[in-house]
């Protein structure tokens, strides 16, 4: 569904990505793991178009989308849940979700998306009139994921969804990810530092280090290789 070949990008004169390649198969959860500061978030931002690619090819559903701006990618069914809970703090939960259905295709399916999202996160339905800024950390993370679902995506990219959450909430985030795959049929690209939880949820794993893909394989293979685990994941 998503094929990235030898992607290069960075900020100003500083190159962050040194030609990593990656593939996400339809209907799977693919995880991109690695420690802090190796370019995982930059990778997602570049794929999504909020950081301009310097080189390489990004293909989505067999179309070359390398140079497309972000809003075009959203229309094509890509969604990004950014790191650090970017909400609209002065809007209530319902309004935040409604904003998600901004592009035309999403607006046509607004009501059904709303039902789907409230089904997935019953907690948000209870709180739909509450200001997003006053929610707890876990609830805010739910809103950002739910809002991304409102854009009616086929591919959803999650940037560290478990960041800053209590262990019990981390577990519920990963349960949600599996539900999104199994019940909604989404394809998921997951960026995580929480390697343990991600290895359990993913069907294929890439390990990134210093802007490169250093290893890839099934979760079992990664777990089985003590070299990889110790060198890059610290577990």
């Amino acid at each position, binding site marked *: 569904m998503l094929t990235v070949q030898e992607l290069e990008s960075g900020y100003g004169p500083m190159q962050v990505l040194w030609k990593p390649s990656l593939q996400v198969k339809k209907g799977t959860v693919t995880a991109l793991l690695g420690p802090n500061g190796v370019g995982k978030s930059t990778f997602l931002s570049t794929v999504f178009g909020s950081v301009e690619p310097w080189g390489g090819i990004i293909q989505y559903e067999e179309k070359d989308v390398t140079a497309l701006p972000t809003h075009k990618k959203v229309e094509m069914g890509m969604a990004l849940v950014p790191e650090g809970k970017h909400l609209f703090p002065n809007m209530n939960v319902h309004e935040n979700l409604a904003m998600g259905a*901004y592009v035309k295709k999403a607006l046509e399916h607004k009501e059904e998306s709303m039902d789907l999202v409230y089904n997935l996160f019953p907690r948000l339905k209870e709180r739909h009139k509450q200001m997003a800024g006053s929610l707890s950390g876990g609830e805010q993370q739910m809103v950002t994921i739910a809002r991304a679902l409102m854009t009616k995506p086929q591919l959803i990219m999650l940037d560290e969804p478990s960041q800053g959450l209590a262990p019990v909430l981390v577990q519920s985030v990963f349960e949600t990810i599996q539900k999104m795959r199994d019940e909604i049929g989404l394809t998921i690209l997951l960026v995580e530092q929480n390697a343990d939880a991600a290895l359990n949820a993913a069907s294929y794993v890439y390990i990134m280090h210093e802007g490169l893909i250093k290893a890839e394989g099934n979760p079992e293979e990664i777990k089985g290789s003590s070299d990889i685990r110790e060198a890059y994941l610290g577990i």
Partner: protein
Amino acid sequence: MKKEITKYYPLIPVFAAYLLLFLIGRNISGMWQLVAMLLFYCALGQAFNIFLGMTGYVDFGYVAFMGIGTYGMALAITKLAHIEGLGIGIIIIGFILALLMSTLLSVAVGAVALRLRGAYFAIATIGVNEGFRFLIEGARIWNGSEGLIFTAQLNEILGREAASSLMTYWADIMVLIIAALAAFVTLYYMRSKIGYALTALREDEDAAKVMGINVTKYKIIAFITSACFAGLVGATSWALKTPYVFPPEVFEIHYTIEAIIIVLLGGAGTLLGPVAGGLIYGISKYYLAIFMPGFQLLIFAPIIIIIIVLFPEGVVGMLKYRLKDSALARFII
């Protein structure tokens, strides 16, 4: 159909305020001067609100668009005065030129400055009016620092009597129309996709991008619209009311600051806010200057601080919140 009309209910208090101003000015002798000033401040606030209020970006170079609009009208009148039989048409050409020039300037400024965010945007724009002023003076564009004086041309084209009633009465009526038009456009934007995009962008630009909103496009739309209204305000309130233009006067940063105060006092991003802000600001400025000449700024500053502390969302922002669940809610946004 009914829904279509209720959409525009919030214009009622705005238009009522303008009508009231007009009636007061018309019927109470000696009030027209104050009313004219208030209309100017309301129009200024209403125009600036489209950008500052709706995007949350602070443009410190805003007065440059008023200045360029003033020049648009001035150039039309000075350059075309020799054409016979143009009559009132010359003012229409002046408005078109003012619109054109403020659009061009806003595209040029926006294309560079709108790539920046927050404080960086504010700093980048702070030099626009000064730079433009020195460019005109230094390069002797449009008569440089000597400015353009076109009282004689106006008298010649329209006749002495008509020109004088244009300056003392009709120019103010045009300001009123511009203010009302700006209010209408504000509400139209608020009620359309543009408004939702801008609200999202004001709350969190990155999140707005992720929603598939082309933030650059909507920022530029708001910027150009707001600049065009500034150009129109300049063309009427400055060029037609006082038929001369000098660079230091029309590129004076003071007016930008006044516009910011008006929008924040009334409530940024609200429809009625600029009217409330313009009235509060204009009336206090006028009467403080009469009753305490020389001390008006000293007294004025604490008043502004008090209002901002009491109502951080502006007067109308506070009203909106208080009246949230009442029947009046649909009139005040």
